[in-house]
């Protein structure tokens, strides 16, 4: 049995930066996975990420990326490419953690065999609990990339007949004027 992590990284209070944790919720709501597959909202774990990725066969991380690409573009980065970056150079708010983490895991001999970063080009990091329209439109294409990576590694998953309700955090409480991510109720 392969040990797999699908981890969403990002701060759910900073607009599009929440896309990683949000995609994790969508995946959990729509799909069932093989034993051995962990699907986790990691928040912004910095070096704690070492624990999460260590000794895994396959790691898929989902994060917002700050690039020149149009907002909502889905970009893929492989382990080698990430590790070639200088530890302190940032390609998004958390990449120091990601690069440092991978390099540390490598030094400790616990780095994952296979790692893919599914990056989603962000439009806005302004404090807010909702995603921008372009990033919202990227959710399904990003899921396709995540599932393709599972396919490439022969890891099984299954579409649920009925979507599972999301955790309370992700559902619009309707009690306030600035709702949380409202569209998740329609997932």
């Amino acid at each position, binding site marked *: 049995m392969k040990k797999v992590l699908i981890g969403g990284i990002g701060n*759910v209070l900073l607009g599009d930066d929440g896309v990683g944790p949000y995609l994790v919720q969508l995946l959990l709501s729509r799909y069932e996975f093989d034993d051995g597959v962990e699907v986790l909202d990691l*928040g*912004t774990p910095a070096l704690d990420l070492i*624990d999460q990725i260590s000794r895994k066969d396959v790691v898929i991380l989902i994060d917002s990326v*700050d690039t020149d690409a149009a907002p909502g573009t889905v970009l893929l980065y492989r382990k080698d490419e990430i590790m070639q970056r200088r530890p302190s150079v940032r390609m998004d708010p958390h990449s120091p953690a990601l690069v440092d983490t991978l*390099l540390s895991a490598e*030094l*400790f001999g616990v780095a994952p065999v296979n790692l893919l970063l599914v990056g989603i080009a962000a439009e806005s990091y302004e404090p807010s609990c909702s995603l921008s329209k372009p990033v919202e439109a990227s959710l399904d294409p990003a899921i396709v990339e995540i599932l393709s990576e599972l396919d490439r590694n022969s890891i099984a998953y299954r579409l649920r007949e009925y979507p599972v309700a999301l955790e309370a955090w992700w559902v619009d409480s309707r009690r*306030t004027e600035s709702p949380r991510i409202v569209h998740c109720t329609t997932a």
Partner: protein
Amino acid sequence: MAKRITIDPITRIEGHLRIDVEVENNAVSNAWASCTMWRGIEKILRGRDPRDAWLFTQRFCGVCTTVHAMASVRSVEDALKLEVPLNAQYIRNLILIAHALHDHIVHFYQLSALDWVDILQIPKADPAATQKLAESISPWTRNSRNEFKAAQDRVNAVAASGQLGIFMNGYWGHPAMRLSPDVNLLAFTHYIQALEYQRKALQVVALLGSKTPHIQNLTVGGVANAIDLDSANALNMDRLEMIRVLLDEVVQFIHQVYFVDVCAVAAMYPEWFKIGSGVRNYLAVPDLPLDSAGSSYDLPGGYIMDGNIAGTRPFKTASDKVFRDSVSEDVTHAYYQGKPLHPWSGETEPQFTGWDGEQKYSWVKAPRFNGQPMQVGPLAQILVGFAQGHPLTVKYATQAISNVQAVGGVRVTPDMLHSTLGRHAARAIRASMLAELAQKHLQLLTDNIAKGDYTVHNQPVFPSHEVEGVGTHEAPRGTLSHWIVIKDEKIKNYQAVVPSTWNASPRDASGAHGPYEASLLHTPLARPEEPLEVLRTVHSFDPCMACACHAFDPSGKQIAKAKVL
């Protein structure tokens, strides 16, 4: 001629601290600490249900999620004058302690040890000699020749590959690096082992908080942990035993490795007990409540002005009136509009001007206590406790002083604690105290449950009139306070004054430096273009800007750049 050096970013974890220093005659003559990101997350909280606030605040930072969750529920409880059942206090205390132990281990080994340890010396070490040295200072059973040899092999492999990887940014071979090859190997081996023990501490947080990051078990008025000795799904004796086993291992690592290593490294760099002092006003709040009302605590609080330790003023409670009345935030040199305000009436209205050392230069506000800058963190915690004769503080502080003397023949006086190494030593002392208290609070919880008390929650009742509260926590980096104003069961205002805001604060209206800035003045630099000494002092505060500021800056491709003014 003065030379300006900019270091950006300085934290090795998420965060965007920028340090500018001016150097004259190879010593720092002026310093600015700034945060390159704008903070405005508190605005999201306005209008929301106060019972939900902690779910949002624990997302302020990905590293210290629990501390913001805890300060938030405490702020609402303070506003409502709501007591917390004993079980809930103990469970919360255990989570806070486990988080702090994790944080202190990570800080020393992953984030600052390599300021003192020269990786490139390790190939010259002799694992057998390292073992002999290690055995002379600690009973740690993993100080074996095999472990040292394995660690050395890893460094050799990295060196042979020509790819320094994680070590790419170190100032290796810097003249300020002075440990012998064997001591370098000893510390590096523990750097590798530390990874396992910080993970065990996090497992304790997850066992009690149901997951980490982002614990799920808090609620205003207590915790949501079901206690049932007959249920496999609740907090039962099996689970308490799992926690005990994990804590015992972490405690042993703290006492036999971390504490010993800090003392040993300190003994080899005695001059750093005289560098990095800065602001000698200290602030710490009491924590680890021992009763439902929060009237007695295991850790003392208080404040010290101008280094006058004998004149320490204690705080009676975690929301002491003196503390409540004395905090304000100045924005003269921060990118915000407005005048100094108390956090309950605090505003967060941005006014970005670009970096200007004479005017506005940081997204961090300048918190002040009775108008004065305050240093927070383990050093403040230890000095405030020591001054009050707090037995646990005195026990480990005395042990640290005698360890440093035994290893390096260095006589450490209390005055030398106002320094870069003083902050590292204080953190190791604090961690050792917390380790002991972890076992105590687990026992308190177990005993209380054994008595048949399963209560974990008191129901909050919201008055219709406006109420104010402050929730504090003496977090790993120092005093954290969340300030809330509630009206009609909704949040009217919310401000978080976080430890790194106190320490990284910019100048205020009177021109007084914040603690980072003040600590850097007069620091000698062996090679100004490689400002290792600046890193040592700033890292000694354990900087983490993620909660002090938020958002994002795409710049900062270089660690340090120097220019002649």
